[in-house]
């Protein structure tokens, strides 16, 4: 359905829950980008920003939605993989630390947070 290789110009969207929101600095904590497996994101796949946001909000009552450019993720040395969940989420993708390591630790989650933009906030 989509190109296996996600283009550098595609945005990756991630929902943020209340407990991961840094209210003092009004941004997600970098803990948002720490997962057991890869960090799940939805590639835009040619959709508009509002479509991406609406679809995420239909799944969970996120406090915020942020987006990060695929180029920026690659720039810090992380990997972006297109891993669709058929039929639930054809846009599903994951950010991995590297080819060998899946979990993001230390500086990479922090850098991804710094590069991300909040596009929806309650």
């Amino acid at each position, binding site marked *: 359905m989509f190109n296996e290789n996600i283009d550098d110009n595609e945005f990756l969207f991630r*929902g943020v*829950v209340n*407990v*991961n929101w*840094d209210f*003092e*600095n009004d941004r997600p*904590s*970098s*803990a*948002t980008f*720490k*997962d*057991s*497996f890869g*960090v*799940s994101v939805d590639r835009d796949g040619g959709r508009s920003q509002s479509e991406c946001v609406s679809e995420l909000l239909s*799944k*969970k009552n*996120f406090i915020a939605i942020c987006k990060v450019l695929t180029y920026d993720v690659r720039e810090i040395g992380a990997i972006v993989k297109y891993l669709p969940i058929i039929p639930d989420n054809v846009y599903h993708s994951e950010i991995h630390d590297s080819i060998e390591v899946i*979990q993001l*630790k*230390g*500086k990479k989650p*922090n850098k991804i947070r*710094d590069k991300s933009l909040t596009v929806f906030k309650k």
Partner: protein
Amino acid sequence: MRNRNIITDTRKGYSDLLKYAALILIADSTSQIPRIIEEPIIFSYHKPVGSQNSTRFNDSNRYSLEKLKLNKQTLFHLKNLKSNWNGYNSKPINEEVIQITEDIISQLDYQPKLFPTGRGTIQIEFFKDENNLLEIEVFEKELFMYKIKNGEEMERNMSFDDLPKVITEFHV
């Protein structure tokens, strides 16, 4: 009248002498044991935070029992997070991790911010500015640190014994 004036003058001179002696005694005590004069008499331990006379309690983030209480409430709340609490198949927060984090924050001068991660760990976070931050991820059996101090980055595993030193160095 004249005699009375002389007596009055003499008394006044005696009173001045006593005041002068008292000043010498205070000055002498101050030079030998300054804390006794300085703290119980001049200052109170219960001065409001940020008092102009206090240098010890002028940082509202330090020794904040209120913030410690809030962090303990946060940890209590994290105990109740079920699987998939973040909408991305996250794990519940490990109970051992919660206990370790509680032990850590109970001994800190400065209270951090606490955030759960999708892998069941807790992130302890100190943030001054973009060039000075400290993130410690608490796993069940280890700690992982990411620090930026004056713009210089460092990340590594660390032991529980290293923790007080790392946090103290960050706040210096």
